[in-house]
């Protein structure tokens, strides 16, 4: 199978879906002539022209709203945010308008729109540029959220998101754009709401999304090599809809669980996952559910400390050992 970069997997998804359906168009800062701040949209302007690949001014509120209006009319906008952090200046359009219009119209309208871009820390861009608002998004009924970690998942989930008739937030990661992975030549789709067991195991469950999945896989390796502990790594992939079944099945098998995410702890997504597990698998838990999140402070610039702020494998290992 061909091995490609995460950014190119996203590019392929966009390319295929724009080819397939000419209602699909893209907007965002620097997406067209500059080929995207991270080159995710490379070549798409040349291929699809400036009618369908639009560079926007720094007017996030206006162009998000413009996307919603266009989606109401049946187009299928894909909006790139240079950082998910910048959705904060368009928060009302996304989490009020896009989320609620269908409901408030009694189902007469729907908003088939994709909002995508990186939502991560770890690159030394400081507190203003390092938000991970997947919990905000997932907490909003009317919105769907996916967080792909491999090139394979990125392509399959983005394609599905573009075909979805509801607003979907796709949360990527600048640290993943350069990662590689196998992606088949043939077309495929990944359904929303389907978790993926990235590593099977029997002693403890690590449940994660986004780049934290990689952290868990590394922790699992260490546990295996150094402690003969066999950890299972569940990649949620999709936060809303959420694959509760896979989560609970894993916990029921291992009876111990550590939830890992790069978001801040208070009301992070894993708070919700923890609630679900203790509610639905209460009798299977041999230890309290543990969480590992980013250290609870604004994102620090200092590259040395930011590495400590974000969950790293040894932290996962230590926490796992504490409940084994």
């Amino acid at each position, binding site marked *: 199978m061909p091995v490609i970069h995460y950014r190119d997997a996203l590019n392929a998804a966009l390319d295929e879906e724009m080819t397939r359906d000419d209602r699909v168009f893209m907007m965002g800062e620097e997406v067209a002539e500059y080929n995207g701040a991270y080159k995710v949209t490379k070549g798409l302007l040349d291929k699809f022209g400036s009618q369908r690949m639009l560079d926007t001014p720094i007017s996030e509120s206006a162009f998000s*709203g413009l996307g919603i209006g266009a989606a109401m009319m049946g187009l299928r906008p894909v909006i790139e945010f240079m950082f998910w952090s910048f959705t904060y200046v368009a928060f009302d359009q996304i989490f009020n308008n896009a989320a609620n219009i*269908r*409901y*408030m*119209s009694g*189902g007469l309208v729907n908003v*088939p729109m994709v909002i995508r871009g990186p939502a991560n820390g770890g690159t030394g861009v400081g507190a203003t540029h390092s938000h991970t608002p997947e919990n905000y998004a997932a907490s909003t009924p009317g919105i*769907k959220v996916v967080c792909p970690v491999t090139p394979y998942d990125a392509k399959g989930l983005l394609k599905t998101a573009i075909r979805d008739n509801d607003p979907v937030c796709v949360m990527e990661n600048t640290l993943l754009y350069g990662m590689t992975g196998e992606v088949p030549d043939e077309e495929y789709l990944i359904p929303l*709401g389907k978790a993926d067991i990235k590593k099977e195991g029997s002693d403890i469950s690590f449940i994660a999304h986004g780049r934290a999945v990689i952290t868990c896989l590394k922790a699992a390796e260490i546990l295996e090599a150094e402690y003969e502990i066999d950890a299972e790594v569940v990649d949620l992939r999709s936060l809303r809809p959420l694959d*509760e079944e896979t989560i609970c099945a894993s916990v029921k098998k291992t009876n111990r669980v550590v939830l890992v995410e790069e978001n801040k702890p208070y009301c992070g997504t894993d708070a919700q996952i923890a609630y679900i597990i203790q509610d639905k698998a209460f009798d299977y838990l041999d230890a309290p559910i543990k969480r590992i999140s980013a250290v609870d402070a604004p994102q620090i610039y200092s590259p040395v400390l930011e590495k400590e702020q974000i969950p790293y494998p040894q932290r996962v290992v230590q926490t796992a050992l504490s409940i084994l």
Partner: protein
Amino acid sequence: MEKTTASLEEPDVSIYASDEINTRLTPDEKIDFYRQMLRIRHFEDRSLHSYQQGKIAGFLHLYSGQEAIAVGAVSLMEKEDQLITAYRDHGFALALDMGMNECMAELYGKITGCSKGKGGSMHFFAPDKNFWGGHGIVAGQVPLGAGIAFALKYQKIKGCCLCFLGDGATNQGSFYETLNLASLWDLPAVFVIENNGYSMGTKIERHSIGRPLARRAETVDMDWDMCNGHHLYEVRAKIAAAIKRARSESRPTLLEISTYRYRGHSVSDTGLSYRTKGEIEEYRKTKDPITLFYNQLEKEGLIDEKTAKDIDKVTHKEAEDAAKFADDSPNPTTEELTRDVYWEEDHPESNTSEGTIFFE
């Protein structure tokens, strides 16, 4: 409905009466505009009454006094033209020929309402009539209006989007962002500021500086104009020019229409703490759009008191019947709470998602 006579100081509107956009109207069409304005007035009066009876919850922003704008604007819309506005949306809904029943039932929160009772007064929709809401967040609809215009242009459809906002709404950043974007991208949009002089209890002088508001368009090289909102013919003439610009040149316009609201901002506001009764009465006497249009039609020999009374009766009855319809309609059932949240959940046959989408 009381009828008052316009004072003598009223400027001559014959220039607009003789504008081709108005001279080509048939007598029936003109009478129908009159009927539509009355229809809105009666609907609003009846909804106010229902509110006082405790049948309606939340907010109720009445359009009374501004009728010529909605009726004038909608009268110019062709098949592909679209409309979007803010929360003061009943007038537009009715002008777009939505039934009073579904509108009143929406206010009552009934399943027969245009949004199944889920949206309420501020959130009416009728996509089949090219009406895209009814939006509660001040100026939140403005970028959407640009998006609707964008969609027309993208699909090479000759049409435009009429996008309405209030004077207070011009102070929202998204309004200005959209002006730049619409002009930069040549979008076929007509942005209309319904300047009724107040943003809730704040007189325009206290909420924004620089007049006219429409001149805000100048800095983004967008055409703009001013208009008296109490003259239906003038409204039609001015909006027609903007629509033409949108359709033929794909260029946006910002139009500022001066108008007035008789009622408080929403029904909980008496509307009297920040303005005088005299101010309201003065407008009613000299600028009521329905009265003025009656006088105009009378001058044209198209209407008399008898016809007016008949129209009054019919539209009044329509509103009464709507209230009864709404009253008699059932509430939505509990299952409705989680319907219409996601298109996919509402269409299980084509839902490709797995997992849990609603949580407890």
